[in-house]
Structures are given as C-alpha cells and as structure tokens.
C-alpha cells in the first residue's frame, strides 16, 4: 500500500504540473499576448470614446491591468482557484453560477459517451480478435479508416440532417424541451431523447479506434504462453477471456483512454456546438465569439481542470488494475 500511496502522490505532482503549465499558457495567450503584444484591450467593452483619460485609467485599474505581470498572474491563479471567475461581460452574471448550470450537462454527455465508447470498443475488439482474418474483420478495419477520416462535427451534422431534419425523430437543438416536462421520469426521458444524437456522434467517432486497438491487444495476449497453459489446464474459454486476457488488456486500454481525454474534451466543444447542447463547450465557443473574457478564461480553466482530474482518476484506476505501475 505504501507503493500505491507513493505512486499516487508522484502522479498528483505530475498532473498538478500539467495544470500549472496550462494556466501559464492560458495567461500568456489570453492576457499577455492580446494586451501587451497585439494591443487589444480587454476592457474595451466598457470604454466609451467620450471617456477622459483618468476614467480610462480607472477602468483599467478595476481590471488590474495597471499592475506588473507577475502580480497579475498570481492574482489570476488565486482567483481561479477560489472560484472567483468574475462576471460575464455579456449576461453580467457571475461566471461560476452559470457554469454550475451547464457543467452537469457536459459531464453527463462526456461521461456517458466515454463509458459507452469504452464498452462498445472493447466488446468489438474482442469480437474482431476472435474472428480475426474473416471478412467481418477486414471490413471493419476498412470502415474504421473511413470513420477516422471523418470530421466529428461533420458526422454530427449528417446525423442531425438525417434524423433531425429529414426523419424528424430527434430534436434539432437543446438539451431539454422548452418548457421542460415537470414529471421527473418524463424529464429524464426527454433529456435522454435530446442526448441521443450527440451521444451517437461521440461514440461513433471514438469507437473505431478503441476497437482496433483492443483487437490488436487481444490478439497479442491470446498468443501468449500463459493462455496456452490455461487452456491446457482445461479452463473454459470464458474464464480464460475474462480472468486472463481481459485483465491484461485493460491497463493499456485505460492508458489510451487517459491519453485521449484532452481530445474528448476538445471534441465536446464541437459536438455541443453542433447540437446546441447546453454545456460548457458550447458556452466557450459562444463566449469567445462575444469577446466575453471572464467566461472564456473560466471555462478554459474548468475544462483543463476537468481533464486533469479525469487523468488522475485514470491514474488511480490503472494503479488498481495493474499493480506493476506502483513499482515504477
């Protein structure tokens, strides 16, 4: 257990470093570069051409733009970590309040899609590995090349066009009907109905890669000596698969999922925008087109935080399923 604690601590430091670098990057790209290099003033929203120079200075001061950069950075990071994400320029509401409305939607969509992708991908990979070399196998590999060359947003658009506009089976936008149903059961049903297409998009886009990956892992594992031994011992196929093969395939798959996490969060921005999902990703997109600085900063921070936390969860899961990593 000592090894585990040490491993988790080391990982925590790694992940905290990711967060820190991301914050520096965010600060550099959103504060330093636009204001100090390109001369775009984030306070221009509040600037009136008739203002006197003193008034302009006051506004700048209110934004903290008069202080030296390192002081600004420290204040910035402190504010982010104390949940003070400022007020939206656009709605004038606290960013954190609006974020709390939208965050659950994003987490539900991303969580469900990741879990589904994983389950379907692993199952498919197992199926392909057992039927390797057959027509089913080769066809699937061909199809997955096609899907990998397919932009995710385009897949979403096509699904929207066919199932939303042509057939009318699914809603065109939003995460619940307006007005939302009052009955909780109906509400959940309505929510799921709205979630179907975005979920389908994310799962379809992700499943091919996992299936191919796990197929190859399964094939490699199934050729190992200990499997032959297990078979010689007279174990039935099911036990071999679940107890021996799957257990050895899981760690690399989870590592791949962890590596894919930033991509999943990225993909959500686009998918949420395509389906007008009331989530954080779409908000980021809308806020950036409205030059809503506090929202962009806040959402970017939350998305990076979300990624880092999920990465750490993946670390913990790997440590549980693969005791070897604790020793590294």
């Amino acid at each position: 257990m000592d090894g585990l604690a040490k491993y988790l601590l080391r990982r925590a430091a790694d992940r905290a470093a990711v967060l820190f670098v991301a914050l520096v990057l965010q600060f550099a790209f959103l504060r330093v570069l636009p204001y100090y290099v390109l001369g775009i003033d984030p306070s221009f929203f509040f600037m009136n051409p008739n203002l006197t120079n003193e008034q302009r200075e006051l506004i700048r001061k209110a934004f903290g733009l008069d202080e030296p950069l390192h002081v600004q950075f420290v204040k910035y990071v402190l504010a982010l970590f104390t949940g003070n994400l400022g007020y939206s320029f656009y709605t004038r509401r606290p960013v954190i309040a609006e974020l709390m409305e939208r965050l659950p939607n994003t987490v539900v969509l991303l969580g469900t899609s990741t879990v589904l992708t994983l389950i379907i991908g692993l199952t498919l990979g197992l199926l392909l590995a057992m039927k390797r070399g057959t027509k089913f196998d080769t066809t699937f590999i061909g199809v997955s090349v096609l899907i990998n060359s397919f932009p995710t947003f385009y897949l979403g658009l096509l699904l929207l066009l066919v199932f939303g506009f042509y057939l009318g089976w699914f809603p065109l936008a939003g995460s619940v009907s307006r007005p939302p149903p009052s009955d909780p059961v109906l509400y959940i049903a309505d929510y799921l109905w709205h979630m179907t297409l975005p979920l389908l998009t994310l799962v379809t886009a992700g499943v091919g890669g996992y299936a191919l990956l796990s197929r190859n892992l399964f094939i490699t594992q199934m050729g190992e000596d200990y499997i032959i031994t297990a078979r010689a011992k007279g174990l039935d196929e099911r036990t071999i698969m679940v107890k021996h093969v799957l257990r050895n395939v899981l760690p690399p798959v989870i590592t791949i999922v962890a590596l894919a996490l930033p991509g999943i969060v990225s993909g959500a921005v686009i998918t949420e925008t395509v389906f007008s999902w009331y989530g954080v990703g779409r908000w980021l997109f809308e806020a950036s087109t409205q030059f809503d600085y506090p929202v962009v900063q806040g959402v970017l921070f939350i998305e990076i935080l979300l990624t880092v936390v999920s990465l750490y969860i993946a670390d913990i899961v790997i440590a549980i399923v693969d005791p070897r990593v604790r020793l590294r």
Partner: protein
Amino acid sequence: MKASFASAKGSGAFAGALGAFRTILRYRKGVFGLTVLVFFVLVAVFADVIAPHKPDEINLAEGYAVPAWFKMFPHYRDLPENVDIVAEGKGWSIRGEGLNPIVLGNTVVLTANGSKRLTVLLERSFDYPYSPPKGFYGALAYNVTVSGASGSSARIRLYLDTPSGSYLLYDSGSIAVNVSRFSTPVTFDARDASLKLALGFSLYDDLGEKLFTEKGAYKLRVIVYLNAVESGRVSVAVGRLYFRVRGLAYGLLGTDNLGADIFSNLIYGTRVSLLVGVLASVVSISLGLIVGIVAGYKGGIVDQTLMFFTDTLMFIPLIPLLVAVSVFIGKSLYLTILLIALFSWMGFARNCRAYVMSLRDRLFVEAARALGASDTYIIFKHILPQLSPIVYVTLVLNVPGAILLEASLSFLNLGDPSVPSWGRMLYNARYSGAFSRLMWWWILPPGVMITLLAMSFVLIGQALDEILNPKLRARRLS
C-alpha cells in the same frame, strides 16, 4: 524495398522520397490513396480553370438556388435559371415622333432643342419561359446634359411590361442639371423595400413572384421625356441597361445564402485544406524532430525538461485553447496553421526521442564519436538519415489531423473569413438554414471532400508505414 530505404541513407532526402514514392505503388491502398491525392492536387492547381467563378463572387443567382441539373427532373423542370437581358445601342427598338436618335456604340443619344417636348420610347422585348422567380435586379446607365438657358429638363423612367400589367421600376424624377450615371449606373433590386411599397406590394412579398407570374413575352421599356425651353438644349444619352432575373437553379451545386456558387467554393476549398494540411504537418514535424533529437541525443536534464513540456502539452485540451486563442488573437490562415502545428508535434517528438536514444549508443555512432566527430556532424550524418522513414510516415499521417482540425475550427467560424475553406462552407450551411431547407447538395460535398482528402493521406501513410517501418508497425494502430 529494404534496398530503396538503404539507398536513401546514402544519397539524401530526395532519393529517399523517390524510393518511398515508388514503393507506395506496390500497395493497393497506397495506389488508391495516391490516386485520390493526385486528383485533389490537380483540382487545387487548376482551380482557376475548373471553377467557373471566384470564391468571393456573390449574387450570381438567387440565394439558396438548387443545382441546374435538377431541371432534368419533372418537379423542377420549370424552375427559373438566370435570365440576363442587356439592352444597348442598336439593341433597343426606338420609337418617338420627330426625332433622329444618334446611336454611338452602346449609347443612344437623344437631343431636344429650343422649346420642344419629346417623348421617346426605348423598348426591349424578351421571353420568360419559367415559373415565377423570387427576384431580379438591374442597372441603367444614362447621362443628362442641359445647356443654354436654364429651365430645360429631362426625365427617365424604366417600366417592366408583363402580361398582367406595367410596373415602374425606376423614375429619375425631373432632372434640370447635368447628371452623369455612366460610371455609376442607377440600380434597382426586387429586394428593395421601397420598390416593393411603391409598386403596391407588402414588404414580405417577393417582387419576382408578383411580377413574373406567367411564362410569356415581357418587355423592358425606358421612357425618356425631354423638355427644352427656348434657346435651351437638353440631351440624354441612354447607355447600357442590364437586367437579370435571379435564377432559382444555378451551376453544378446551386448557390449559398449570398448567391455564391457552391461548386466554385468547393473547388477553391481544396487549396486551403491541402495548404493547411501539408504546411501544418511540415512545421509540426520539424518541431517534433528538433525536440526529439535534442532530447534523445543529449539525455539527462535536457531530456527530462523537454519531455515534461511535451507530455504536459499533450494533456491540454487543444480545441478549447484554440477556440479561445483564435478569437482573441485574430483570424488569419497562417496563424491557424501555426497554432495547429504548435499543438500537434508532441507525439512525434516522443517517437523521435525513443528512436534517437536507441541509435545514440549504436556502434557506428560510437565509432564516429571516437574519430572525433562533432555532435552536429553525428546528428546530421548518422542520426537524421536513420530517422527518415519515420519522418516520411509521420509527415503523411499528420496531414489528416491538421486538415480535420482546420475544418473543425473553420466550422466554428474561427478560421480566416476571407478564405473559402470547406469547414467554412459547412459553417455557412449550418447557420444560414441549409439544414432546414434540406439542401443536401450544399451539405454533403464539403464533408465528402474533407473525408476523401484525409483518407487519401491516411492510406498513403499506412502503405508507407508498412513498407518502411516493419518494426514500428504497432504504432500505426494507435
């Protein structure tokens, strides 16, 4: 194929590329990918020839026009195409009493002298063989010259005579001064709200539908009133009249919301995607190569620092960052390319580093070092040539990612607005109602092009990989 790779080591990158190119042709998917790629490159190079219009030309027909070939189907048979009428010079039939019009090239000059009133009709008939259009527009050039005693005036009116009635499209009012509308002709447009109201229709009516109600003979009629006072002289030169009924069927793929040709946009989009894909891939590979070689060759603290940054960058969600950055930093194609490259070199740097580390301690490197070769010499003469296979493969395999990323960013309206990219077409389609109009001819082609182009690079890359890197085959699957 081993031989061609080995020869690449000796005779430089060009021969290596040639050898790789030759070996691609031995693989079926490589041939397929290469064929598709060559097709796209040809399209990009000859875009000016293939595309009938420049991508920024708008108002070519009515917005949301269907493809012209739809007219083969009975349901669309009567759909109007563009009807262009140009009347000038001898093209007019001129009527009017006591008058000798002078036709000079494309201009008709009408003159009245000394207390004379003249009414001249310039007519141009045309046939309209389609169902009602949505709108029309046009321009009329004229010149009024008044000389001698003041008080002389002229007035020009343009009528459209339809089978059901006569409509006043333009009235100059009484003009008693010199007016020149040759370089800036007067225009009229069916979308003009005041024109709609002046003709007695509501703001929500389409004038085209109201005026071109049936097939048949239509007539454009310019009436020139000349009123010369005593010892005064007034002269009107009527130039070119241009009149277009905006078609509802146009081009190979119809028009977008602004009446731009979708097919032309599609063709020019090839250039953007190819440019972004190749350039971003080259830049990111160069970055990855530098970081990978330095980290792998130097080792130690340099290696650890560089790999820390590589791993950290790998874990930062790319699109949210790019969304934020491209909005605040501005929209330019080359900036987009740079940003894409800046955030996509990490995987290659890691591969590269691992490979360099394995090479660093090989005998031939040690031998070179023992002979007193400098680090730069060893890197350029011994390490870099060995890396060429993975460089080629990754160079190709990184292109689709960049293409898809650029398309995604353009779809989020974060691309360069002056550049006709496929992602931008899809953005336009999504946000100007192509979906609710079920315009699949607008929505499908850009996506199909993106997919085909990305797929061609994937296939070539996979073929290359199988040929050049039998040892690294596992990497291909991630």
